[in-house]
């Protein structure tokens, strides 16, 4: 079936919209020095940032799954009082400027922070400037994407399957593991990938809360930012890697798992 021909104004504005997103990408492709792109990507600083970003984004996704899936289930299945407020609270980082998230993390988990002071005094635990801080910053900004995706998935599950399992004597825990989770596997996967992609791109909260040290807290986006002043060709090559990975994620998800249309 063919869609109706779009009105001139809408099509023109839409084309400008596409150009707005396509031109920066074209700029990166244009500026990349293809001869040296590969050697730029295997410089020690680029490699260490790539490695750290991989570790941090995967850790943030695992943490997101561990904490986010139960949260999504609670939102979808338990009508506890204040649910909307709590959901808003846990998805706030989606709309919050990441640097504000970083400041918030710092005043909570920093050495003089609400919890951090106690962690330092009681256990000698200091979070800022560590890879753990980088993981926390990434989880903080990325988990909401997973929670919302999985919650929508659980809501769309036909509750009769769960009811049937219950009448057969399955415990709530067993129903969750063996009925609900397999049924929401596609949204689980989509949520995890979105979460991972967002964690990979995290910058503002990281540089504020975790600082910037190669090999410890300098993830890809931080390396791009710092590198733009010293080795622009490396920064541009790394940027292109980030763009391609993110683009790949969105294209794959849209086609296979996200039912946006």
């Amino acid at each position, binding site marked *: 079936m063919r869609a109706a021909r779009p009105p001139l104004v809408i099509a023109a504005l839409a084309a400008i919209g596409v*150009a707005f997103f396509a031109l920066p990408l074209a700029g990166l492709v244009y500026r990349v020095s293809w001869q040296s792109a590969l050697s730029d990507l295997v410089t020690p600083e680029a490699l260490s940032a790539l490695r750290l970003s991989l570790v941090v984004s995967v850790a943030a996704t695992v943490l997101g799954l561990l904490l986010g899936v139960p949260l999504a289930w609670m939102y979808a299945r338990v009508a506890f009082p204040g649910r909307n407020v709590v959901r808003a609270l846990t998805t706030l980082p989606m709309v919050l400027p990441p640097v504000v998230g970083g400041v918030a993390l710092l005043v909570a988990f920093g050495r003089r922070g609400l919890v951090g002071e106690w962690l330092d005094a009681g256990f000698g635990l200091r979070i800022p400037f560590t890879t753990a801080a980088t993981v926390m910053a990434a989880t903080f900004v990325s988990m909401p994407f997973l929670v919302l995706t999985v919650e929508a998935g659980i809501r769309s599950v036909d509750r009769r399957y769960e009811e049937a399992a219950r009448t057969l004597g399955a415990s709530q825990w067993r129903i969750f593991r063996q009925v609900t989770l397999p049924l929401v596997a596609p949204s689980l996967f989509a949520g995890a990938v979105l979460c991972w992609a967002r964690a990979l791109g995290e910058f503002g909260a990281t540089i504020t809360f975790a600082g910037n040290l190669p090999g410890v807290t300098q993830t890809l986006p931080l390396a791009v930012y710092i590198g733009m002043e010293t080795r622009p060709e490396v920064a541009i090559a790394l940027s292109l890697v980030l763009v391609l990975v993110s683009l790949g994620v969105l294209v794959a998800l849209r086609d296979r798992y996200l039912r946006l249309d």
Partner: protein
Amino acid sequence: MSSSRSPAVQRPRTKTKGSRRVHIRRLFAVALVVVAAACGGASQPATSSLAPTGAPTPEPLAGAVTVFAGSSLTDAFKKAGDQLKLKYPGTDYRFNFGSSSTLATQIINGAPADVFASADDTNMQKIVDAKLNDSAPAFFVGNRLEIAVAAGNPKQIAGFADLAKPGLIVVLAAPPVPAGKYALEALQKAGVTIKPASQEVDVRAVLNKVALGEADAGIVYVTDVMSAAAHVTGVDIPEQHQVIARYPIAIVRDSKNPRLAKAYVDYLLSAEGQRLLAEFGFSKP
């Protein structure tokens, strides 16, 4: 449903498939033209702002300038802007503070700066090499390094040697940032190697990490310690390990307001401007 829909909107639906395709193609052509016009429009004001500069008789200074300056200049430059506002009513001064290396990169990539003040010669040289300066860079002020520690110096840090102690959290500015480069030079002179916990994006970020108590020490400028005297204490660096920062300033090419840009630079170089900078702890260049 909207009953007020104009029949003119519906009429073209009767067109054939072939003309529809042509139509779509034309749409993209239109869109491209619109985008091109928008791009051209952005650079238009730069060339059409002849009005304030083209007049032969000296008109009173007016309008605004945007000053890009190393973050260590934050407080002093804002004060200078306030002074000039009193001197030349109707003028306005906008600032973009950051590491001189970030600012140089921004200017090279076309950021609309009228004045650039760098905390080192290296980053000013990038602007000169790109032929983006409109006046020869002039050294207008100097600065010295100092170790910033928590107010009252609870960890009793006496000098560079103490910074290498295990368990101490030390932050520096990143190596491309002037303050980071100077700090490494000074540490090298002292023969001390430290493992920084973080390489911050500019010197004020280093200062803030110490002021917030997240870092035990940071290497910053004397002027930064003065600006945060309530939260941090400065520890002197002996003369033989000291690195003196010299700050150049220049008017940026294609400034939309070169007269006011020159007025700002001239003020900083004047006796009055130098007195103001000295109040913030800056030394002679």
